[in-house]
């Protein structure tokens, strides 16, 4: 900086010799170069951001999309009366005494007889029943109990193939890895290939991944997101039902009615601080207040919903106040001028105009709550739940999990097939988040008014 005057002098002398606005002098050149460099930095930052996003999305899609298709084996199962209905009176209540494990033999027998009937032989093959999921006995039992008259006959079932077979067709299991694997042998994979040629083994779109409940570690192929999606939906209902009215009421009071004094200042500062509190703190609070003190059940969407409400409130209050503030004072003044009460001015004029902003803020708050995991860990939502919660309001008190928590849960399971399902669950979560954010943008575009 100290040599500035000299520099300027040099520039001036240059200008006198070759004075032309057509030919830029040294200083203009350096300014232009600086601007170009700055633009390049900015562009670089955006490119890095986009590359990171593309990489993230691509890796999730690459790993998760296979979870939406699943391999099925279609096979005839004989339903022998002596094992399924030992009493012989076809009474479902009596037949229910044969537990699921009692049906396991039927699957092995069905596989054996299917191979014999089609004359399929694979050298060194043992235990061909392993190809079929351990979910199959439960599937047969459910069907038999609702169709007791079919016992004694034969019925064709579409069973899930075991996860190792499924992964073989998705490329994660190979003949080499199967040779080392205690769960599957290369001979069993060869058999799967033969079944595929025979048309017994097919790969289909797997709706049950979205609708079915979670499954135990022995049958990863059967695990689905049904309970998690319901749990997340219930929690969002609770958050919407509580956070929106409370948040809007609080903001209207603070913005339109409250006097400006030290107390409102303190409240204002605290709301901004609350928005920055780490979410796990709300989980500890929820455990202490709602479960230990309030006696609400563990693992229930009601507790999750209440905790997420606390977490979302500051976001909603801040965005609601911002949109109330953006309504021009002339609207209030006009309403008050024609004799409206303060409350009429707010509810008839200001609130409808601030509506789109409030909705956008709420939806963004909800999207944030939907993806939240940490507070749910502490209130027992990370659980193995295979039963759908009832319809609300009773269902709010039934155990359930949530989408992000299900992702966390699946990444901890031993069987490698759960890793694929965890990525699949991330895709479902991202789709929901995208839908919510797009709705917020559309609402804002459609109803936003500028003054």
């Amino acid at each position, binding site marked *: 900086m100290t040599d500035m005057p000299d520099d300027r002098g040099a520039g001036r002398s240059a200008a006198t010799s070759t004075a032309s606005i057509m030919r830029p002098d040294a200083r203009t050149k350096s300014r232009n170069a600086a601007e170009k460099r700055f633009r390049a930095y900015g562009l670089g930052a955006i490119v890095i951001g986009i590359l990171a996003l593309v990489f993230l999305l691509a890796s999730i899609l690459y790993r998760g999309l296979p979870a939406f298709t699943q391999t099925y084996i279609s096979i005839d199962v004989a339903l022998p009366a002596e094992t399924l209905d030992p009493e012989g009176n076809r009474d479902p209540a009596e037949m229910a005494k044969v537990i699921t494990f009692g049906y396991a033999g039927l699957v092995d027998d069905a596989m054996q007889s299917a191979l014999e009937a089609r004359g399929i032989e694979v050298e060194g093959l043992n235990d061909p029943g392993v190809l079929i999921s351990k979910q199959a006995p439960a599937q047969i039992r459910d069907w038999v109990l609702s169709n007791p008259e079919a016992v004694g006959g034969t019925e064709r079932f579409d069973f899930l193939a075991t996860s190792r077979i499924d992964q073989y067709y998705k490329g994660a299991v190979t003949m080499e890895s199967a040779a080392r694997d205690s769960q599957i042998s290369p001979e069993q994979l060869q058999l799967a290939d033969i079944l595929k040629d025979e048309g017994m083994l097919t790969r289909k779109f797997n709706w049950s991944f979205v609708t079915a409940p979670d499954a135990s570690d022995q049958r990863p192929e059967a695990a689905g997101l049904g309970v998690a999606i319901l749990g997340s939906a219930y929690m969002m209902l609770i958050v919407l039902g509580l956070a929106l009215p409370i948040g809007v009421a609080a903001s209207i009071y603070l913005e339109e009615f409250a006097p400006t004094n030290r107390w409102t200042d303190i409240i204002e500062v605290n709301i901004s601080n609350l928005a920055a509190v780490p979410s796990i703190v709300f989980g500890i609070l929820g455990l202490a207040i709602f479960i230990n003190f309030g006696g609400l059940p563990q693992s229930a969407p009601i507790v999750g919903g209440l905790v997420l409400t606390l977490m979302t409130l500051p976001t909603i209050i801040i965005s609601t106040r911002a949109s109330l503030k953006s309504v021009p004072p002339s609207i209030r003044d006009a309403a008050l001028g024609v004799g409206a009460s303060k409350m009429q001015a707010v509810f008839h004029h200001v609130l409808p105009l601030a509506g789109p902003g409030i909705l956008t803020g709420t939806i963004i708050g909800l999207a944030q709550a939907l993806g939240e995991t940490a507070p749910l860990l502490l209130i027992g939502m990370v659980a193995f739940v295979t*039963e759908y919660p009832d319809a609300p309001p009773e269902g709010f008190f039934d155990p359930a999990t949530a989408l992000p928590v299900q992702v966390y849960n699946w990444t901890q399971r031993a069987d490698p097939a759960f890793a694929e399902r965890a990525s699949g669950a991330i895709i479902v979560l991202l789709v929901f988040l995208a839908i919510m954010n797009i709705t917020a943008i559309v609402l804002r575009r459609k109803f936003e008014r500028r003054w």
Partner: protein
Amino acid sequence: MSFVRTTASVAILAAAATAAGAQGRDQVQVAGSSTVLPYANIVAEAFGESYDFPTPVIQSGGSSAGLKLFCEGVGENTIDIANASRPMRPEEQKTCADNGVNEIIEVRIGYDGIVFASQTDGPAFTAFEPAQWYKAMAAEIPQDGEMVANPNTNWTDIDPSLPDAEILAFIPGTKHGTREVFEEKVILAGCEASGAMEQIMEINGGDEDAAEDACMAIRDDGAAVDIDGDYTETLARIESNSDGVGVFGLSFYENNTDKLKVATMGGVAPSTETIASGEYPVSRPLYFYIKKAHIGVIPGLKEYAAFFVNDQVAGQGGPLADYGLVPDPELAQTQQKVEDETTMPDPS
């Protein structure tokens, strides 16, 4: 006015919520050990399918965390069963009793092996002895009559027959029940077998408890890495470190034999057979604990416990044995215990 309507509907919702909250809980709630978790999941799933009772809800979190929840008291908003990969400690039983949980039924479901595995393509870690693990993991080892910081950095420093690789072990963190078994059955056993125990007692003047503590102190210079997460985390570390050796549960290893190779311990390969016969040295019993006061209050609680230890479930050839549980040879006694609701003796 829509605002008033929203407020009213929230009030109705809250009222309905309170009414529903007053109803009793109708499903069994379980929490505890992440080692027992997969077994409990399998049993709960089959229980829900086979009986009219709702499927139990199983939470994970570790043995100690589960027992802490369990001992919080009696009542519908406390859990009914705690899974544990170690027996309940007397002080835990005392906390339980202080909170009104006096009658506890202890159920042993079987045994679990702890195995030492590494990458399939990594160095040939195929046979280990407890003494080698002691020398690799101890914080301080006795040398020429005094304790010195563990100088071993390569497996060949300990035994030339071991592969030439840097010592890097991924062991369970202290919140896991597995850590305790690892320390007692591998490190302490190795300390005694190598003769280090005697030397330590010579140095410290014959204090056996202090010597045991000195044996089981694990080095913290980076050669031993505590894993606080699940075995999936250990597996991920092994996959990115070809020299690493990890400590796993037998069932986890059996589900990932295509990625891991297991080492023998004391010349015995881990399998359900060698663990059941007691030849394989590193195994531990798995338990769950039932609150007797909840039997008859929570529907299906006793039925779930009885189903868990049923021969068809926890016995030879059952689904739990398929998954890697070593069946308990004394299962019949356990079944009787559940049937009679025999509680644990008072700790004092």
